[in-house]
């Protein structure tokens, strides 16, 4: 989410804004969506605000500018569930309280990543942060769809390995 241009707006104002300035927006209708409607994530149990907060957290914990929001959304969508909604609500309340204590309207309302990181550092020892972070290690990086973004090729057995496909092709050394 690119929120830099929204710096200084209140969270309520931000949330009521048109989707047009966002890479990702919270809608009033129980889902968050990309502005070009390329994908959307429905939420059934937690609120769209909470899902947007989780998504921003995921980006700030493991920021990869080349990795699109949809992959982060996949990594956190599991929190939209009955058995995690209380944990999410309490965790985000703690996160927003930490943001307020640092002079911000809320975590999501902060424009600069470095300021959001300071808020995350205030809660990083807590159960909520640790659970979200640990979950992302597999939830994000074990998505085969993102491997090509990092150049990682995954399994090669089905192609006969690399014996004829460049295991020793380094040319710049």
């Amino acid at each position, binding site marked *: 989410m690119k929120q830099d241009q929204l710096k200084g707006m209140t969270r309520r104002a931000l949330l009521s804004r048109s989707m047009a300035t966002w890479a990702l927006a919270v809608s009033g209708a129980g889902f968050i969506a990309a502005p070009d409607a390329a994908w959307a994530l429905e939420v059934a149990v937690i609120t769209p605000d909470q899902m947007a907060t989780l998504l921003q957290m995921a980006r*700030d914990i493991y920021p990869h500018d080349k990795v699109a929001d949809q992959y982060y959304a996949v990594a956190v969508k599991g929190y939209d569930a009955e058995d995690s909604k209380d944990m999410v609500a309490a965790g985000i309340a703690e996160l927003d309280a930490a943001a307020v204590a640092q002079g911000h309207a809320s975590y999501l309302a902060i424009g600069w990543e470095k300021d959001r990181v300071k808020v995350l550092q205030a809660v990083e020892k807590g159960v909520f942060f640790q659970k979200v972070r640990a979950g992302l290690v597999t939830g994000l990086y074990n998505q085969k769809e993102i491997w090509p973004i990092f150049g990682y090729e995954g*399994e090669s057995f089905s192609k006969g390995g690399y*014996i004829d496909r460049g295991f020793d092709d*380094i040319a710049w*050394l």
Partner: protein
Amino acid sequence: MLAKFDLNDDSVVVIIGTGAGGGVLANELAQKGVKVVALEAGGRYLPEDYLNDEWASFGQLAWTDTRTTSGDWRVAKDFSGLPTWIVKAVGGTTTHWAGASIRFQDHEWKALTNYGKVEGANLLDWPIDGAEMAPWYDKAEEKLGVTRTGNRPGLPGSNNYKVFEKGALALGYTQVHTGRMAIQSSDDTGNRVACQQTGFCFQGCKWGAKWSAAYTDIPEGEATGNLEVRDRSHVAKILHDAAGKVTAVEYFDKDGKLQTQKARIICVAGNTIESPRLLLNSASEKYPNGLANSSDQVGRNYMRHVTGSVYGVFDKPVRMWRGTTMAGIMQDEAHHAPERGFVGGYELETLSLGLPFMAAFLDPGAWGREFTSGLDSYENMAGLWIVGEDLPQENNRVTLSADAKDQFGLPAPNVNYSDHPNDIAMRNHAYARGVAMYEAVGATRAFPTPPYPSTHNLGTNRMSEDPKLGVVNKWGQTHDIANLFISDGSQFTTGAAENPTLTIVALAIRQADHIASEMTAGTI
């Protein structure tokens, strides 16, 4: 054809565990006509079953039974329930190992003599030496088909190796090559398929190019009609008679039913965590501190090598995941040279992880751009692993947890480990040399990565001349109970700087020879 022995057959040798120690021992005894029941906690997986996907493979093969940890090692903080990265399957961790097969150096058999007393360490000489072991190493190298031994050529160098080699040579190192590997390097020098440079050596070799007991020694032993392997059979307790001799094992079978298998001889090869755990869980009125524990050394002196990794980032692609994972070694730092600030030595070996494991292990718990900008350069990374001699310490030990239980209700093991100052000095030296190697070929950044959960687990039933100082004698026979043997890496007196599998295999071949001749002589 497949042997099937009766639960009441008290003429069999029962082997607990089927990895590098137990799997080899089972086959070697079966070849000599000895009847063997091998009990394996894990299931059977063959190359067609292996998954070239890191987390999926981990779910398939890794030993993830309940364990707890303590001590100042970072694994206890980052992976508190997972002290080891080993395998629960027929063939044990020979499925996962990378294949590096190097002999101990002569001085390492006599660490106490050659290093002298080191404060805080529990150093001891092995009751055997390099000359005693040389013919057994010869047999082990033949069995495993180790490259650069016999007529077997070395493996070709991968991209990751080429970076490693150029950096090592630039620093003036000379003992640099693609390793002595239990991986077939040509179609003409063994019975296995030659390596296809597929990567995923840690996930089980889908070509069967790497030696694993799962598809070599186990089926060879079974083909004799003398070996019965019962998989998914978790041993709970070893029983003994009034005279103190062991007589049977109790185990949970495939269906979770408790069974009792009688035995003439019992060989414990459940890996360095499970083997002492089983001896401790077998405590009785006669042996209140656990079996074979009159020395109070069962579970103590846990070693896991001085390890760590260095990942170097370059301005151009390396693609370290392509090809054999560990076919690259630098041995110039493996000798004992205390002027470096530590006793013992270390090897540097090539290593790579896929992106999912790199995310988990590069800097566990780290987050933010310092971490992710490293992963952004994943394609441009080269990697190496440190394998050095850590010092045995009495309080680095496996004990029974007071409250944690496994799925059968048995007390779980706690693994306590803290680095000795010698370990820290060695690791820091190795980090600095690894970083310098990569910087010498243009690395723009380097990561001194902390140790992973342990794959080299050693020392918790150590071998000693003096029964007061260790658990087993020079044959792996327990000092206290003549028909109870230890057959895995837990019998290591000290760890040396080398990957342990070749030595475990050599000891198992030698032990089989000893057990068979003692049985013939009627002494056990």
